[in-house]
């Protein structure tokens, strides 16, 4: 069994932290893993993406083929749409819904969200606003991870929570707790939507 995940967002939004947590959980669970990251020039406010492949069997390609991603996890709604050609027919999209507008020709928001909502499996939420309201301004990406948790059949939510605790262990307890709280918020949202 395998799960292919496209992670996307804008440089600096923290998609690599999401990948790190899933990678940590997958490694602890004894899964095979390959994760292609983007470093360098594109990190400067441009679109960024990472291919994360988990499997019970050996993984060949570091990159996900077109039409095969089981899941798109995106910190930004237009960036979720960018990778549609990679989404499998029954694949899910889990995305933040608030546009990050740093270009002059950003599409019209309503049309963009309508296009997202027309897809078969979409979970979206204004994670930035929720994170701020709950006093977790730096943990929006962990809300998103929580939202994706029900779509990660190879990993249990408890395994992801343990991974958050390990990944952020070098930081103070407050950071770990904020990230766990954020994860739970996202998970609840996805379960109820």
């Amino acid at each position: 069994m395998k799960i292919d995940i496209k992670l996307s967002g804008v440089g600096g939004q923290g998609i690599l932290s999401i990948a790190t947590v899933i990678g940590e959980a997958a490694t602890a669970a004894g899964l095979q893993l390959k994760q292609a990251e983007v470093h360098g020039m594109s990190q400067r406010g441009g679109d960024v993406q990472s291919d994360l492949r988990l499997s019970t069997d050996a993984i060949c390609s570091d990159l996900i083929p077109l039409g095969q991603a089981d899941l798109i996890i995106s910190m930004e709604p237009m960036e979720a749409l960018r990778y549609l050609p990679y989404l499998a027919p029954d694949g899910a999209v889990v995305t933040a819904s608030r546009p990050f507008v740093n270009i002059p020709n950003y599409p019209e928001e309503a049309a963009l969200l309508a296009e997202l909502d027309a897809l078969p499996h979409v979970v979206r939420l204004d994670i930035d606003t929720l994170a701020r309201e709950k006093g977790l301004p730096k943990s929006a990406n962990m809300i998103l991870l929580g939202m994706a948790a029900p779509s990660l059949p190879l990993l249990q939510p408890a395994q992801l929570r343990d991974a958050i605790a390990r990944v952020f262990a070098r930081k103070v307890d407050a950071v770990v707790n904020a990230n766990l709280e954020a994860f739970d918020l996202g998970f609840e949202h996805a379960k109820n939507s």
Partner: protein
Amino acid sequence: MSEKRLLLGDEAVALGALHAGLSGVYAYPGTPSTEITEYIQQSPFARERGVRSRWCTNEKTAMEAALGMSYAGKRALVCMKHVGMNVCADAFVNAAVTGVKGGLVVLAADDPSMHSSQNEQDSRFYGKFALVPVLEPSDQQEAYDMMADAFALSESLKLPVLMRLVTRLAHSRAAVAVGEPLAQNALDPDSERTHWVLLPGNAKRQYASLVAKQPEILGLAEASAYNRLAVPTAGGLGVIASGIAYNYVREAAPAADFPLLKLSQYPLPAKQIRELAAHCSRILVVEDGQPFVEEQVRALLGADYPVCGRLTGDLPRTGELTPDCVAAALGAPCGPAFAPARNLAPRPPQLCQGCGHRDVYTALNQVAAEYPNARIFGDIGCYTLGALPPFRAIDSCVDMGASITMAKGAADAGVYPAIAVIGDSTFTHSGMTGLLDAVNDGSDITVIISDNLTTAMTGGQDSAGTHKFEAICLALGVEREHLHVVVPLPANMPEITRILREEINYHGVSVIIPQRECMQTLGRKLRQKKQQ
């Protein structure tokens, strides 16, 4: 049982080198190679062993210093991005003629598709050019395993060994089983002078000996465990897949029920190629980068044997391979289920908010607008993004250092004003010599060294000339009254534009150094301080 670690391809190379008894890494930062040296710099094991790892001024100084360490009998690694090979080519090619003592591995990380580069040259050509063995790992495990073999190969052949990565391996993570570290070599400088003093008489002997080694190098590639031929069936299509391409072939055809040659060590193993050809009626060559293997296979098998690949259009002639184009070439395409989105716009990278380069371009654009014939020659770094909107400020970006020298040449031809914009790290990498030319010629150019106190584009590595730029410029002969240091902030715009105008109006070499720390490195330092 061996320990497993989750490593980037770059990190696997770094750890493989450390475990192979490395004594020093020499490198200039460049995507996608930077993380190799960073891993060694941050490794407690490397610190314990005293492995030398500070950044070098450029790839040529790195290559020469590594050759010096090899001369002294110790194992050294040189890392760079593909275009760095151009910078160090003189030292690299001649290191094959002198030969080496301690193992010398040269790692070039190629960037097909130019994710962060200005071309997609294929470093394997450099290996063939210099007549040295080339290794090309297909995955992270091989990247780790190959390092010990590469150093051993280098010492047994007494030649540098070139190892080639591509972006998708350098920057992809997977679990790697790691082994026991080997001891470092003891200090044992070479005393065989005739190898090292490349006067024509010696060089001719050395070159003849290098050429005489070629059958042995070929034999090693043909016997290499990294080159594997599998012939499950015979008759139809055979595939040659080099390096990372092997994974894409396996992805597209998990059963691999066709003859398949996995290629990871060069020179091209002619024996296996002929054997493969004998088992099939045509061959598809799948390789990331330029058609290096494909051209040689064609030459080897003759014009009548059908060979396809990038040269025949079965695979794209440019850009990196993808599992999709490889699947299509194998006749097993797997297309998208969803069409590209309608509500989509490109989101190019841009200069950070608050970045000093922004203020530099704001000032430059303001002043340049007063001179309709002004030309601004750019260089390699974050500030190359000044070419994009909203600034659209630069007219060229070619290679490290070319801003100053191109401005000089254009000024020689009569372009006025000719302005160069170069970053601090790029200036010490390759700009200083050009500035000396300009000073000696009294060229009418205005040079802006946009100093953010770091090598920012690659993630904030130490910059070789930090706090030394005024001294360097003065020593190169720039006149004191035409050398200015300013702080690029919106509040200082009147001062900066005034100085720019005055120096453009001065018909000689002037240097303006806008100096303010990179927002990213500043932010990182503040966060570190807060954590402490």
